[in-house]
């Protein structure tokens, strides 16, 4: 055998574990030499080649098995060691399980919501086309019909561009009347998304080409008249959602071909059922559509951003190229049709990004917080390891003296942490899967795609990866002091190197734990303060005791002034009937402040032809302001004298008044509304909170009896007692007026406010729980260091007490160490918290991210908890009997 062969063979042997090589390497080399000489003499070069092939194959097969054997023995050894200290093992496993469980549960949510592609074919090629308004850079309005049509015709970078117009329809037959959200879609809508119905079909070219279903008041009234004359209703087609099919039609397979009667006096035939994947593209922050009808209101209007536009990138096109084209084409359109917004431009945003944009920062923040908890957990595990190593220092030093290499010691520490992380990780995975339904049940309703969240192999992969990371981190960190161990140090002295190094590392760990815990506590304090600010702010109205109910719509829509008066009369009768109910203080019709308002454009002031941008306009009845408890700032509210035919009056909100008349009182001023003509302002009220309660909105209110605008179908009722018993009576009154009206849901206004703050409450609950865990672990950490230090200094403390040290001196001696760690930890934690808080800008309200109160309270709370933990070892030190203490040396 040549020297080269021997070298190659030795190189091959390196694939085996070093232990195996040490035991058998020389023999194997000898045997291989004999074999190869034999093979060469008998088979020549071919024999040698055959031997080599066989040997290489054999080594490749055996080496992993030998490695596995080493691991198995290390793990068995680690298990034996761990079984010897069941209490600390259980603690470590439990804390790892909680840490990994939390992170895995949040990972499942984050992946399901933010990262998993939308359940549509090639969904990463889908974009939403939106308008960019220089006046509101953070809003992404839908397109106006005119802009949509032009963009669709002029762009080449998309293989499909389609739009939907979100609206409501009320099904009145068969079954209970029910109002359902849905979409009027343009041709190519389903094709662009790439979805197919699970049952039946979508719409044909003819159906898309048919005239728009006229939902104008006159058209509906005309159809109602026809029906009254016994003529059959016009028939259109509808595709329903999987959800509606399952819920209302119990998933019956013969649903295609069924007809539904709508409140707009129209028959629609169900031609298809879409799959559940359509829920994923629910309109932003809206309810998923339950039905689709042809076709979207297209046209040339440049006002009204009503078309939710979806487009698919053409093959070979990138997002950037599509954006570049949109910019050029859009600039041309904006220049040709300045319309209401001259400076507008258009942008393509990936559909997934649009769907999750409102929850991304919140979820990532929570995942980050969970990672912090895991970090504190790991630091604590390393703590326990080092405490154990300190207890075993003589054993470890002896082994080093007897020739155990550092590598062996590190490997054993690693295998111990691997076993712990393995068991903890498995438990954590179970915990995550088990707690996921709980987590989802407290999740706020606004989070999209929650129904898509699944436990899959990604979950396992994440759990396993996290467990491996924990094992490596803990193993390496815990073996650091071991690598610095010199046998003579540990053997020579009771306070040998391992303890010294270990204690130094453990102090660093305790400081780290305090720092991370402080970041968590500051974050949760900021959330607590935000919630407080939201809930104690002046809402502009008083929700206590107010319930909101859907108002019956007139069976026949008001077509002329007389019918309008009739409709208003009906509203008034409902309000009067409701007002008579026992306990009702005031009742009125108008929008709920948290709900939607009708935007009104085209308002002008006398002598100034400029049109004002859209302002919210709400026609309200008598009793509305009283029911809502608004605060009058100036002038008066409406009186019975503001009746139909009388001069039209308006009440405006403070900010609107300031906008129209910045330097004058609004009361007595006149504004010109497109449908009413001149309207005199008689009063100014405080702005009311809207949406997530973070913004205040202005608005114009006019008496509904003087208005030609449709009253928002909502009734607000203020009661002086529990409103629940009133619900059946209210429903009965509503039913009496319009039996085809959907059964009104009666909700306390407070519930709507709770819903508005739900996302923050969810974040607050989780971050609060995380910070409690973080603080608990950090306190355990600092306690451990001090307790050990007291145990080690027993003789010294004994001497001090024997020499006359007072209890206060001893306490100070021990506490000084704790306070030092605490101070450094808090300082580092504060720096970290400043950085983290900057990321929370979108989440806080009413306070700055540098809110001093939050930081101070967080520090004080953590310090109090840590000092309380420090007092336990300090008390132990004080109560030492000097005689016993001195003997212990």
């Amino acid at each position, binding site marked *: 055998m040549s020297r080269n062969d021997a070298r190659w063979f030795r190189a091959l042997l390196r694939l085996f574990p070093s232990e*195996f090589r040490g035991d058998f390497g020389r023999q194997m080399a*000898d*045997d291989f030499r004999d074999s190869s000489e034999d093979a060469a003499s008998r088979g020549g070069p071919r024999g040698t080649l055959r031997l080599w092939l066989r040997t290489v194959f054999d080594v490749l097969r*055996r*080496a992993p098995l030998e490695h596995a054997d080493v691991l198995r023995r290390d793990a068995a050894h680690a298990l034996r060691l761990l079984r010897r200290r069941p209490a600390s093992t259980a603690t470590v496993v439990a804390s790892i399980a909680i840490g990994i469980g939390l992170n895995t549960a949040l990972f499942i949510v984050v992946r399901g919501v933010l990262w998993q592609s939308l359940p549509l074919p090639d969904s990463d090629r889908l974009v939403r086309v939106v308008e960019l308004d220089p006046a509101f850079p953070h809003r992404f309005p839908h397109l106006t019909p005119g802009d949509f049509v032009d963009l669709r015709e002029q762009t080449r970078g998309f293989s499909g561009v389609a739009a939907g117009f979100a609206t409501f329809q009320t099904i009145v037959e068969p079954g209970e009347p029910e109002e359902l959200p849905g979409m009027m879609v343009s041709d190519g809508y389903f094709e662009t998304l790439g979805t197919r119905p699970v049952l039946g079909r979508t719409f044909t070219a003819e159906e898309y080409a048919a005239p728009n279903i006229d939902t104008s008041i006159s058209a509906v009234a005309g159809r109602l008249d026809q029906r009254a004359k016994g003529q059959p209703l016009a028939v259109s087609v509808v595709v329903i959602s999987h959800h509606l099919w399952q819920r209302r039609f119990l998933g019956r397979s013969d649903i295609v071909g069924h007809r539904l009667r709508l409140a707009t006096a129209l028959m629609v035939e169900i031609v298809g059922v879409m799959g559940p994947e359509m829920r994923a593209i629910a309109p932003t922050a809206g309810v998923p559509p339950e039905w689709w009808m042809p076709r979207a209101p297209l046209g040339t209007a440049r006002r009204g951003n009503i078309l939710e536009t979806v487009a698919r990138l053409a093959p070979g096109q990138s997002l950037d190229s599509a954006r570049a084209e949109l910019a050029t084409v859009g600039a041309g359109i904006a220049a040709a049709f300045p319309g209401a917004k001259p400076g507008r431009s258009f942008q393509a945003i990936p559909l997934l990004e649009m769907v999750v944009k409102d929850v991304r920062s919140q979820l990532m923040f929570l995942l980050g917080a969970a990672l912090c908890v895991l970090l504190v957990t790991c630091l604590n595990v390393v703590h326990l390891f080092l405490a154990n190593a300190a207890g075993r220092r003589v054993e470890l030093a002896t082994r080093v003296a007897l020739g155990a290499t550092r590598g062996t010691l590190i490997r054993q520490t690693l295998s111990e942490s691997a076993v712990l992380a393995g068991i903890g990780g498995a438990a954590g995975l179970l915990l995550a899967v088990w707690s996921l339904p709980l987590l989802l049940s407290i999740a706020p309703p606004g989070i999209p795609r929650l129904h898509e969240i699944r436990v899959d192999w990604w979950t396992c992969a994440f759990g396993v990866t996290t467990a491996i990371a924990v094992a490596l981190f803990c193993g390496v960190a815990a073996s650091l002091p071991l690598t610095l161990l010199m046998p003579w140090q540990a053997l020579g002295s009771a306070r040998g190197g391992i303890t010294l190094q270990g204690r130094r590392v453990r102090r660093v760990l305790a400081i780290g734990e305090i720092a991370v815990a402080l970041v968590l506590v500051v974050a949760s304090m900021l959330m607590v303060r935000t919630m407080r600010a939201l809930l104690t702010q002046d809402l502009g109205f008083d929700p206590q005791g107010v319930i909101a109910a859907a108002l019956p719509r007139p069976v026949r829509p008001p077509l002329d002034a007389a019918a309008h008066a009739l409709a208003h009369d009906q509203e008034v009768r409902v309000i009067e009937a409701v007002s008579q109910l026992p306990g009702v203080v005031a009742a009125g019709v108008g929008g709920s402040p948290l709900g939607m308002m009708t935007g009104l454009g085209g308002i002008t002031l006398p002598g100034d032809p400029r049109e004002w941008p859209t302002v919210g306009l709400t026609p309200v009845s008598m009793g509305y302001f009283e029911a809502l408890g608004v605060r009058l700032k100036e002038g008066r509210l409406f009186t019975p004298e503001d009746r139909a035919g009388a001069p039209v009056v308006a009440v405006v909100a403070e900010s609107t008044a300031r906008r129209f008349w910045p330097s004058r009182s609004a009361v007595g001023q006149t504004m010109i509304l497109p449908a009413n003509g001149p309207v005199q302002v008689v009063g100014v009220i405080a702005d009311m909170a809207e949406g997530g309660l973070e913004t205040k909105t202005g608005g114009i209110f006019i008496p509904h009896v003087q208005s030609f605008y449709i009253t928002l179908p909502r009734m607000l009722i203020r009661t002086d007692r529990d409103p629940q018993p009133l619900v059946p009576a209210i429903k009965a009154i509503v039913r009496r007026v319009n039996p085809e009206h959907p059964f009104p849901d009666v909700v306390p206004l407070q519930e709507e406010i709770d819903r508005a703050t739900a996302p923050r409450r969810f974040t607050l609950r989780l971050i609060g729980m995380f910070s409690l865990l973080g603080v608990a672990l950090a306190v355990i950490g600092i306690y451990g260091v001090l307790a050990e230090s007291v145990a080690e200094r027993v003789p010294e403390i004994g001497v001090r007490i024997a020499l006359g040290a007072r209890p206060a001196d001893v306490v100070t001696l021990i506490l000084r160490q704790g306070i030092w760690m605490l101070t450094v930890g808090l300082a580092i934690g504060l720096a970290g918290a400043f950085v983290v808080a900057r990321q929370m800008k979108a989440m806080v309200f009413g306070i700055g991210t540098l809110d001093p109160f939050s930081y101070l309270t967080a520090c004080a709370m953590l310090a109090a908890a840590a000092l309380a933990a420090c007092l336990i070892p300090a008390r132990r030190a004080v109560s030492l009997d000097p005689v016993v203490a001195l003997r212990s040396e």
Partner: protein
Amino acid sequence: MGDAPGRDPAALLPLTAALFHVLLSLADGDKHGYAILKEVESRTAGEVVLSTGTLYGIIKRLLAEGLIREVAWLSDERRTAYRLTAFGRKVALAEAERLRALVASAKKLLQEPA
């Protein structure tokens, strides 16, 4: 570990074919690794051909179980040879007996008239 008189040889059965052959190859005297390879190959007429990696995996196990032990090779001090322990012999015998019983019962079963 060496010889453990209290241990039950049957606890280790059945042996894998390769392991059994390695034990058999040591029945007539100490051998080093290469000699074991050759002996197994010739005894099985080339049917069982062990490579060094597999062989030493087996040797490791046999040493750990106390079926063989290391001895110095007479003609070459540097090389290690292996010797069958008394317990190893018992285990090999037990395996042989197990195989014999198996063969006997198989024959009986197969030769019975249908």
